[in-house]
């Protein structure tokens, strides 16, 4: 047998990966009889033991665990919980309960801005990755629009009135209908999000932020290679087969665009900003 082949079989012997008893016996015999193979065996065994002994494992940060669970754990909307309980209540109580429920729902709708936690945590967030996560949160129904409108001017007005301090743009994509928008906030900054749909039920999600918000002190950042790509090519794109993600810049704002219409051409999505 060739020397290299024997040495590799010795490695397999050390790892208990020689299921053939005959082969195992013959390799063992070589290790016992031949000093060179014996040395090879020792080197493999000692190195393996040393790595195992000094593997120095760490525990995943608790913040990472919390962050992941927060993003994947299904949330039952408050009003849904209330309605679920409602059907267990018998008629006389039902009437009083209905009044209470209506009041609670009204209060909930008035004060509701509970989307914030879905969008960003208080740590630094990758802008592109956050946009992708937000897209899936919309798809899964974990986030709902604050305003439903197909009127770009009305949505811009809404963003301004609700406290977004940078000048927002609401792009129009050919063959897509604007559905509405959401405002999120983190660390005192407010951000604009837009949703579109087409006739096939596909979605476009746009996360818009003023470029200066992506400074070091901000909650959001864009990795250098992506930013370099935007500077050089005017946009960055990432295609996963399930979603396409784009990043582009226009009038001092950065736009992360995520869509599940993977057939959508870059030109259609990006030309709006050029």
């Amino acid at each position: 047998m060739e020397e290299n082949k024997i040495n590799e079989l010795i490695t397999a012997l050390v790892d208990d990966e020689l299921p053939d008893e005959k082969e195992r016996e013959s390799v063992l015999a070589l290790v016992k009889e031949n000093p060179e193979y014996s040395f090879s065996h020792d080197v493999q065994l000692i190195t393996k033991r040393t790595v195992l002994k000094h593997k120095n494992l760490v525990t995943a940060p608790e913040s990472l665990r919390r962050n992941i669970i927060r993003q994947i754990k299904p949330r039952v909307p408050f009003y849904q919980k209330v309605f679920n309980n409602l059907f267990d209540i018998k008629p006389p109580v039902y009437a009083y309960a209905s009044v209470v429920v209506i009041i609670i729902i009204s209060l909930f709708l008035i004060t509701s801005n509970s989307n914030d936690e879905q969008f960003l945590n208080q740590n630094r967030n990758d802008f592109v990755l956050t946009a992708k996560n937000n897209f899936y949160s919309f798809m899964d129904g974990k986030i709902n629009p604050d305003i439903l409108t197909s009127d770009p001017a009305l949505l811009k007005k809404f963003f301004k009135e609700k406290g977004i301090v940078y000048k927002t743009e609401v792009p129009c994509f050919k063959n897509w209908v604007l559905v509405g928008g959401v405002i999120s906030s983190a660390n005192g900054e407010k951000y604009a999000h837009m949703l579109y749909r087409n006739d096939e039920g596909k979605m476009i999600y746009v996360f818009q932020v003023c470029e200066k918000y992506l400074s070091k002190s901000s909650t959001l950042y864009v990795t250098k290679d992506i930013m370099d790509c935007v500077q050089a090519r005017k946009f960055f794109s990432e295609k996963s087969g399930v979603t396409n993600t784009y990043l582009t810049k226009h009038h001092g704002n950065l736009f992360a665009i995520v869509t599940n219409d993977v057939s959508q051409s870059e030109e259609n999505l990006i030309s709006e900003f050029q």
Partner: protein
Amino acid sequence: MKDNNLLYEEFEKEAIPHMDALFNFALRMVGDSDDANDLVQETYLRAFRFWDKFEKGTNCKAWLFRILKNTYINSYRKQTKEPNKVDYEEVENFYENAKPSSTDDAHLEKEIFDNLLDDEVSRAISSLPEDFRTVVILSDIEGFTYEEIADFIDCPVGTVRSRLHRARKMLFTKLHKYASSKGYALNN
């Protein structure tokens, strides 16, 4: 289609417990805890998206590692600085010279490797080229079988065996150098 709550409960029970293993692997691959955090987070979000496709009863840890690998290749590999290439000829020369005086397993282990620190071993692993580092971590730290590693790196089992053999020789050489610099070495 399964209820979202049920999917989440299964995922929490089966996939979340492997987070430490994934984090450690990510840390060794990208070399930075912030990037490792992002890599593991993206891996879990992707895994949850495709959780209904996961075949129950199969190896969940291996499945998660495959997702992490694909995420790493797509998003992180270009950013990560590859360690300097190992001069394999140098490794072979060292190895050949070490042979004659080193046949006693117990002696070797005691004299050279007992006094190494965790950091020195970690540093030596990190300095291996990615292909070799991967097999050492998966085999010696995570305890994957050759077949699982072959599936992970998309290579035949023979390639796993060969890479592992060479990887351990490289590591042995590096660890020996660390030990020598501290005064623990063979008389060769």
